[in-house]
């Protein structure tokens, strides 16, 4: 990519060889476990337990997945995670824009102080217990709101959005709009937001993935099974033998139970990561863009 040259010196040829070996190594280290998980989840339990499965399925079957799709808890978790992610992300975007736009206006009196107020919460966070007590006092424990409100604004994302508004919307355009008598609400909704679709897409992705993958908050704030997120259900299934045994019982005779539990674990991992991995190729390039905007100096 950098500076092309027609004849390659010996030194550089060695570099290219080493470079490719390095990349191959990176590729294998990352891909091998993922492939192994996928392959193990569709192999026969006995082959798996004998350690024969590496990168190709042995005794291909989908029994484990058939069990998973009959697990009520997993399906509830799936549904809840989708709901929390959608609702949470909408709240995130609205709140982040409402904060980012005013903070991007240069002659907004109090801008500096307000920015400081936001940034301070990024570098100083209240301990766990006062945070928990607060959520409890607000009556949010074991409700969807404990999942979507406490993290309504990520200050990091707020700064990305504010920086974007500042850098990409020309001042002359804003001035012209003001001279035409447009007020701030009008400028924000009719001028700034339509020009900021790319950054909004990036923020949606950042927030949505964070919601989908979060575990700890759901673990401490949710207590009823009907409200659990997918991550909590996955964790419970993988760490408690009972849940897996119940699933394994339905498929095989007792002698093979331990082996079936192993296959189920792999299948649960695949099942859990499927939505994000499936969307991944489509969203990947937006993430890269987000990182670049984020690393810009404002």
């Amino acid at each position: 990519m950098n500076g092309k040259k027609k004849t390659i010196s010996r030194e550089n040829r060695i570099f290219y060889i080493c470079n490719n070996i390095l990349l191959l190594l990176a590729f294998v280290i990352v891909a091998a476990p993922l492939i192994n998980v996928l392959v193990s989840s569709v192999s026969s339990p006995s082959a798996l337990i004998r350690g024969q499965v590496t990168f190709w399925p042995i005794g291909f079957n989908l029994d484990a997945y058939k069990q998973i799709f009959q697990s009520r808890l997993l399906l509830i978790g799936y549904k809840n995670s989708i709901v929390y992610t959608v609702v949470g992300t909408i709240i995130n975007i609205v709140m982040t824009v409402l904060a980012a736009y005013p903070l991007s206006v240069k002659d907004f009196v109090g801008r500096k102080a307000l920015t400081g107020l936001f940034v301070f919460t990024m570098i100083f966070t209240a301990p766990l217990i006062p945070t928990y007590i607060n959520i409890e006092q607000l009556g949010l424990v074991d409700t969807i709101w404990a999942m979507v409100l406490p993290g309504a604004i990520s200050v990091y994302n707020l700064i990305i959005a504010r920086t974007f508004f500042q850098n990409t919307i020309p001042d002359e355009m804003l001035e012209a709009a003001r001279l035409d008598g447009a007020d701030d609400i009008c400028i924000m909704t009719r001028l700034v937001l339509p020009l900021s679709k790319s950054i909004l897409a990036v923020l949606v992705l950042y927030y949505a993935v964070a919601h989908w993958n979060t575990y700890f908050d759901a673990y401490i704030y949710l207590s009823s099974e009907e409200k659990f997120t997918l991550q909590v259900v996955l964790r419970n299934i993988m760490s408690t033998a009972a849940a897996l045994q119940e699933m394994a019982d339905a498929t095989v005779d007792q002698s093979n139970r331990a082996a079936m539990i192993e296959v189920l674990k792999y299948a649960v991992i695949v099942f859990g990561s499927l939505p994000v991995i499936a969307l991944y190729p489509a969203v990947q390039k937006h993430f890269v863009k987000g990182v670049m905007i984020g690393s810009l100096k404002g």
Partner: protein
Amino acid sequence: MAKIGNHSGAPAAKAAGSLKKRIMRHWQLYLIILLPVIYLIVFKYKPIIGSQIAFRNYNFRDGIWGSAWVGLNHFVTFFKSPQFSRVLINTLGLSIYNIVVGIFPPIILALALSYVRSRIWGKTVQMVTYMPYFISTVLVIGILNQMFSLSGPVNNIIEALGGERVHFMGKPKLFKTMYVFSDVWKMTGYNAVIYISALAAVDQQLHEAATVDGASIWQRIRHIDIPSIMPTAVILLIMACGKVMSLGYEKVLLMQNDLNVQTSDIISTYVYRIGLQGMQYSYSTAIGLFQSVVSLILLVTVNAISKKLNETSLW
């Protein structure tokens, strides 16, 4: 990172007219930002004020403002307890290990990707290495447990090579290593993107000039690329140092088991255990507050140092 509050252009008071006029001109902005400010107060500053229970004996009936004031008692108890040195050493050990091991792989990967000659191969590697970032911590730990279980693939390989099976996830000594290298696995591709964008910003004429002068790729990396990604590396290091104390609950908690608790018990998990599980609200808050304050001091200090040395800073 974004600089906070730089007034490029418009010198603050230039616009004639009084403060009142300037405020009135943008009255709608205050309306717009009202909701976020309320959010900030209710969900961020209220718990910070609530942290005063670290200096009280909190009980549910008397509440945050009414419980008996005990001053620094809880802090003293913590500093004198045997757990203090244990969780502090575990926290710092894990964080520093994580920073030291984690800083180079993304830089190396970014450099390797920027000199790859086949575009498709480069894109493939980037896409694959970036993928684990999207897998949730719960599942990363699930994969880790499966790969390194006693009967898992890694142990199968070890045995095939004539070695003894190792109980990776149960050995206290191996906990930090498992944590750090699974983090490298998950984060390297993501962190590399930041360096890739920094490398893309390097003036291509520098590379061309160096090539004309007969510089090898190694020399170009050493004298052009490395200096130009230093500021990025410094910022990431600052952020990492600021988080030395506040290593998160999530991953450690997910990896913790009865066997490795001796080395896996860090401040965050201790705060969680004695607070939410042990119901010692005030004591847990005191430890958490100690953690937050030290983090704040660290972040401000490291930032000031880097500002002086490098003219790179977070704010």
